[in-house]
């Protein structure tokens, strides 16, 4: 199971996509809106600045108009012309109130102030802005001036009577109230300030709108000046678009500017509710999307997980719950296919299991199944694990197959199984090999086992009948009892098989397992491993049995006999392992070792001046080895031993079993000059007629005829006949198993060539043999001296 489930990943992917797209959209919209607002702010500010100037002009026009009406007043003109200062002042005051002026001046044509309604403390004697007066005759003249820290709008109007006699200058204060009034009347922005230049780079605010933003102060602080083009800046942490607009001013006057601000925050405020609505929608959409994604993913992942669980159950061998899903989409199709597959796999597995556990011919459980069942029965519950295992073997079966073919044999085996089933209803029946059946009688004792075995033998001894054949099956039954002969099925089976082998040779066809006569004890197999180790580690050795030349009474030859000094078992006789080595294919290695060792020893003797003749036994299997003559030739040349010093001894059985190969090998050996001796002559089936075809140079009379030679006349006759006949055929003769002086004397008397046996000497180690052979040089044999 991955750490992050399919469902979670799917849901996360959906949500992440949704959030990303929404955030990108939001960012885009915000940026576009903001840019649009900045552009709009620039446009509005410029328009507002122009509108502000125009509005000021309107105000000054209104004031000027009023003053002009005043200027045409005959009484005023008369008063001015007549220099009637008192009347003039009162008229000016009166009129000043009408137009909303804070101060009215009468200025003479030479610029001298002739009347001033302002404070006497700040009264002017000479009008400080002569250019205002100069231009007043040509056109209406108005300008913003800063005086005493206050800004005012000054309008100069000449008085004609009918020629100019002076000018009335009206001063309208540009104060917070006026700005507020203008803001009410027009689209003047709420953030507006008037500033007068107190010194280069220093601006003092002289009036401000209804919102006290501090535009000028922060601009001067942040930018050391005022922006004459729209500027985006930050005032008190808020974004503003700011523009300074110069106002009309007299030449000698102080600069007065209007600073207008456009708050982006204010402009954005209508969008704020949109943003909140959007965020709410996003959150809502996110939630719904999350839920939707979760459910969608679940609808996909749930069935997938269910299928996975089903797959795990199937893996564990549980086919009972096929993944059934009532859906019509792809998952449903998958589930359907899955179910079908599960059924098919289940059927196939059942079939395979059945085949694995059953014999296809008889449909009985096979050996594996039988072992499992028997083991289960033996170890089951509180029972003591008693029972009888009957191994039923049909010994003739290979012969029947060769004769009648497999098909009939199969029918025969089916027939056999059916017959056994009939007579052993309660037994567990299985076929454990091609020729063998097994019956497991749970809780049965020996008597019951024998009864069952006899019943089976009865029914199987009835010949198998087909249309034109009648076949005897020759059944045999081996019985192994549990727990006496084993507490495990495998052991019981093996022992029952041993018993069955034994039974197949007996007359009754019935046998119990007997551990003492079991030729198949496991330790035999381990012996072969040890033998291979012994060959590698040279723990085998050769002993040499002297061969006495009866004519010369000298030991002139030896039969090399293999001895094994086992590290744990001590000395092991050749009989105990040679046969098994033959069976397990190890004999050729043994022979090679024996040949090499014997010839090496012969070389040593020859070098010591002992030209001894060595005889080496060959196994039947050795005569299947076509390389043997070449190998012996190689060994002879390596050890510089003459070929006629070596004799190989073979049994009669060896040359009869595989005649063609064996004879070919023997001939090649004989051609090389190696002597061929027939061992144990007389007990086998070989005849002189047969031997004539072989390159035989020597016969060794079996000890059976030699042992009682001293007393048995029949044996004497047989031995004399063999010696005679052999000599006539050109063979030398050696008598084996000479055990007394009488036999030795007789053999010498009839002209037997060599004798060997305990009476002369048992087999000796190489050194002892050399001493023995040397010691006998030139002496007549005194039997038993060494015994």
């Amino acid at each position, binding site marked *: 199971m991955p750490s992050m489930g399919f469902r979670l990943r799917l849901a996360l992917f959906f949500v992440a996509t949704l959030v990303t797209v929404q955030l990108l959209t939001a960012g885009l919209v915000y940026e576009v809106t903001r840019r649009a607002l900045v552009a709009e702010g620039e446009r509005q500010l410029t328009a507002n600045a122009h509108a502000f100037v125009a509005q000021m*002009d309107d105000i*000054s*026009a209104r004031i*000027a*108009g009023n003053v*002009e*009406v005043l*200027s*045409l007043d*005959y009484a005023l*003109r*008369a008063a001015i*012309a*007549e220099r009637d200062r008192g009347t003039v002042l009162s008229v000016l005051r009166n009129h000043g109130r009408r137009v909303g002026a804070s101060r009215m001046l009468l200025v003479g*044509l*030479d*610029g001298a102030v002739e009347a001033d309604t302002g404070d006497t403390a700040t009264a002017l004697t000479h009008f400080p802005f002569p250019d205002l*007066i*100069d231009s007043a*005759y*040509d*056109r*209406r*003249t*108005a300008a913003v001036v800063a005086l005493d820290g206050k800004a005012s709008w000054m309008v100069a109007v*000449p008085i*004609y*009577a*009918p*020629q*100019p*006699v002076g000018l009335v200058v009206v001063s309208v204060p540009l104060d917070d109230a006026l700005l507020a009034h203008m803001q009410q009347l027009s689209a003047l922005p709420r953030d507006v300030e008037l500033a007068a230049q107190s010194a280069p780079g220093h601006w003092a605010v002289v009036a401000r709108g209804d919102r006290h933003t501090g535009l000028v102060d922060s601009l001067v602080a942040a930018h050391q000046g005022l922006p004459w083009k729209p500027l985006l800046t930050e005032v008190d942490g808020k974004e503003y678009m700011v523009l300074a607009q110069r106002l009309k001013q007299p030449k000698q006057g102080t600069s007065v500017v209007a600073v207008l601000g456009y708050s982006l925050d204010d402009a954005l405020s209508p969008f704020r509710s949109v943003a909140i609505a959007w965020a709410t929608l996003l959150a809502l959409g996110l939630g719904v999307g999350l839920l939707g994604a979760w459910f969608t993913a679940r609808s996909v992942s749930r069935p997938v997980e269910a299928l996975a669980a089903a797959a795990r159950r199937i893996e564990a061998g549980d086919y009972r719950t096929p993944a059934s899903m009532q859906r019509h989409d792809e998952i449903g199709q998958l589930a359907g296919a899955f179910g079908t597959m599960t059924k098919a796999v289940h059927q196939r597995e059942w079939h395979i299991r059945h085949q694995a556990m059953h014999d296809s011919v008889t449909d009985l459980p096979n050996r594996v199944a039988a072992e499992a069942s028997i083991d289960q029965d033996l170890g089951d519950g509180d029972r003591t694990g008693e029972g009888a295992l009957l191994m039923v073997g049909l010994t003739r079966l290979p012969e029947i197959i060769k004769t009648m073919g497999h098909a009939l044999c199969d029918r025969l085996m089916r027939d056999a199984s059916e017959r056994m089933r009939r007579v052993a209803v309660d037994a567990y029946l299985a076929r454990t090999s091609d020729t063998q059946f097994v019956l497991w009688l749970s809780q049965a004792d020996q008597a019951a086992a024998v009864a069952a075995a006899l019943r089976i033998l009865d029914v199987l001894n009835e010949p198998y009948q087909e249309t034109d054949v009648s076949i005897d099956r020759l059944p045999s039954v081996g019985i192994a009892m549990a727990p006496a002969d084993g507490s495990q099925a495998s052991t019981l089976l093996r022992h029952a098989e041993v018993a069955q082998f034994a039974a197949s040779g007996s007359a009754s066809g019935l046998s119990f397992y007997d551990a003492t006569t079991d030729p198949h004890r496991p330790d035999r197999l381990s012996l072969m491993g040890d033998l291979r180790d012994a060959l590698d580690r040279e723990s085998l050795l050769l002993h040499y049995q002297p061969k006495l030349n009866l004519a010369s009474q000298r030991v002139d030859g030896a039969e090399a006999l293999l001895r094994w000094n086992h590290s744990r078992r001590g000395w092991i006789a050749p009989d105990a392992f040679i046969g098994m080595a033959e069976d397990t294919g190890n004999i050729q290695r043994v022979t090679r070792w024996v040949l090499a060792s014997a010839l090496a020893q012969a070389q040593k003797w020859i070098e010591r001046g002992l030209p001894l003749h060595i005889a080496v036994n060959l196994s039947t299997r050795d005569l299947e080895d076509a390389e043997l003559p070449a190998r012996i030739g190689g060994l002879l040349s390596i050890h510089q031993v003459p070929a006629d010093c070596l004799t190989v001894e073979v049994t009669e059985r060896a040359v009869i079993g595989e005649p063609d190969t064996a004879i070919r090998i023997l001939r090649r050996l004989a051609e090389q000059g190696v002597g061929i001796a027939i061992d144990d002559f007389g007990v086998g089936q070989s005849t002189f007629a047969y031997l004539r075809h072989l390159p035989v140079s020597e016969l060794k009379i079996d000890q059976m005829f030699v042992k009682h030679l001293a007393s048995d006349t029949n044996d004497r006759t047989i031995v004399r006949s063999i010696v005679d006949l052999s000599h006539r055929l050109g063979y030398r003769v050696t008598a084996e198993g000479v055990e007394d002086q009488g036999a030795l004397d007789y053999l010498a008397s009839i002209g037997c060539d060599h004798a060997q046996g305990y009476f002369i000497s048992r087999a000796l180690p190489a050194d002892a043999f050399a001493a023995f052979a040397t010691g006998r040089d030139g002496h007549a044999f005194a039997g038993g001296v060494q015994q």
Partner: protein
Amino acid sequence: MRCLLMIAALFLGNAWSAPAAEVVVHLSDGRGHPVNDAVVMLMPATAAVAKSPAGPPATYIIDQHDESFIPYVQVLRPGDKVVFRNSDSTRHHVYSFAAIKTFEFVLRPGESSPALSMDQAGIAAVGCNIHDHMATYLFVSAVPAIAMSSHDGSATLGHLAAGRYTAQVWHPQLHPGHPEPIQNVTIVGDTDTVQLSFTLSLLPDPRMSMDREHLDY
């Protein structure tokens, strides 16, 4: 017009015994247009202003026609008289706050004022309290060499002796508060004709269809 001829006859009468040098003054505004109705005076730089030959005082009629005073500027000798005659069908309230002569009277259509004697030298601006655009100027001066510019912007001052003079120009539309334009003129020979040029900076003509309440800024 008859009065003018009379004055001309007076000057001509003097010509026989006087020098014949001339000063022709050309007046134009800043845009090159000839300026008429300007008063040009030529005053000897060294000698005191010679008294004009005393003649019998003349009476000048300032007519009011189509809501205008005619003429716009009238040059007078001290002691001359003026009569304001209303030739319009409306009343005119003729007034003057001038220092040399203050008067005021309402003239009914067709009515004439009594003759006013202008005894002091100076300028009297006369207006109508009913019609603000009406104005006329009575230029009272004793300077002998005085002339008004004609429509081609020139004014000729004759019968001048050689010597150094100061030429001074006055016009109703000269900028108030500014010094009057003055040039020094030297006449070498008695028959010389000296050309003088003045460029005047003038205010708009108040008699035009001007409405002071609707001036452009």
